[in-house]
């Protein structure tokens, strides 16, 4: 089992307090800048000392606040890939890998390094330096791989997962990468865990307004439950400026205060002239941000929609607008 419970006071305003397990596969540590993600990695790697808590790596206790166990980084078996380039600058990529494979006899060392260079398609080009650092970390046969935000993309992460079957703790702000590769997600903000669990569950079903905002659900509205209809599997939600039809909410009562969130990409926009349907809201368009692949439309009352560029080109001359918030896309908590 690989598990971390960490408490570390950094300043009067900021205390990191986190507990999570790292099963085999990728555990993604997501959150905004300054959330304590890199600090978490440093504490697990042994570069900094937690004030309290316990860190288990592959069933071995490497830190325990109560019994004052605190193994140095060398003996933790946690290979750390930092956010900045840490390839030793006076060595070639091959020599860097050799450094990590030092424990084996010469022949075996050369074989392992050559295998790794082939597997990760490494050369001396700057573009492969991140891959080289990950390969170097895996070569040392760690029990846990710690990867800080260092420009890992999906192909590289997949290679790392093939080459290293153990747990990988990955710091990233890239939600697509989390969704594609991670088994678990730990969502961190201001030193606290907002939410953790199976990656797709966390990414798809935030449980708090803060988590929703971090996960890209930029439409968050406070609402009151006006009606619940288990027969038709629907509910009626009164927001400040409009009313919505939502999914049935088991475990809630009429009059409950809840939050409704949905992704901008799930919001549909229509011309004001067509017939309205469920959850169609006539709203004036406030601002448009045209991006590479999409257009982000900001409507009144803080409703944001993100539609494909083609769709935007088709609709940009609309005289009036209505937005559709599909009931199935609403997340209520």
């Amino acid at each position: 089992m690989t598990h971390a419970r960490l408490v570390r006071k950094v300043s009067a305003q900021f205390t990191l307090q986190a507990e999570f397990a790292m099963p085999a596969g990728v555990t993604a540590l997501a959150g905004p800048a300054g959330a304590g993600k890199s600090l978490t990695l440093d504490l697990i790697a042994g570069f900094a000392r937690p004030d309290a808590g316990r860190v288990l790596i592959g069933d071995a206790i490497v830190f325990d606040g109560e019994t004052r166990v605190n193994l140095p980084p060398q003996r933790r078996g946690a290979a750390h890939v930092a956010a900045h380039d840490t390839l030793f600058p006076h060595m070639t990529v091959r020599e860097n890998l050799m450094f990590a494979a030092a424990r084996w006899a010469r022949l075996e060392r050369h074989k392992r390094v050559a295998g790794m260079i082939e597997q990760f398609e490494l050369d001396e080009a700057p573009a492969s330096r991140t891959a080289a650092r990950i390969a170097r970390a895996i070569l040392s046969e760690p029990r846990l791989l710690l990867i800080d935000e260092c420009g890992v993309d999906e192909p590289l992460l997949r290679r790392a997962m093939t080459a290293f079957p153990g747990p990988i703790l990955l710091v990233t702000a890239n939600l697509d990468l989390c969704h594609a590769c991670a088994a678990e997600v730990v969502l961190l903000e201001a030193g606290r865990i907002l939410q953790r669990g199976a990656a797709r569950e966390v990414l798809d079903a935030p449980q708090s307004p803060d988590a929703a905002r971090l996960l890209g659900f930029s439409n968050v509205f406070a609402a009151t439950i006006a009606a619940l209809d288990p027969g038709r599997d629907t509910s009626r939600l009164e927001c400040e400026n409009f009313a919505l039809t939502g999914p049935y909410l088991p475990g809630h009562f009429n009059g409950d205060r809840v939050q409704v969130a949905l992704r901008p990409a799930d919001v549909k926009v229509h011309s004001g002239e067509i017939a309205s349907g469920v959850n169609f809201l006539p709203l004036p368009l406030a601002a448009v941000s045209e991006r590479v692949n999409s257009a982000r439309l900001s409507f009144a009352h803080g409703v944001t929609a993100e539609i494909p560029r083609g769709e935007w080109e088709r609709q940009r001359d609309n005289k009036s607008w209505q937005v559709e918030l599909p009931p199935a896309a609403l997340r209520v908590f």
Partner: protein
Amino acid sequence: MAGELRTLALCAAAALILGVAISWAVSVWRPRRGAFALALGVLLAANAPAVLGLRAPALMILAGLPLVLLATAPRFREVNREYAGAARSLGASELRVFLRLILPLSWGPVLLAGVLAVYAPLVGLLL
């Protein structure tokens, strides 16, 4: 004079080795910056009599030591911060980190430290 020069060379070598060792220890164990600065200040004050021409070997070592620290400690600290963490997490021992990483990346400052370790007591000798 020849005997004095030999003493001086030996003292410079001792100051260099001792200074590099202390710099290494300081970079690895990272005492508070204030504590290191204070110790350095005391050492610098203590080397005044050595620079002023007292020729006991201990004083000659003392003359070069703070200059060696000044020349090497910042670079050691920087290499330690940038690269040593990665090396340690790969399982490299502190000695290996020093010999394969810190020292090869700090030849410039170490060379300068060597020059200073000779220069400081030499000033005293010539005065």
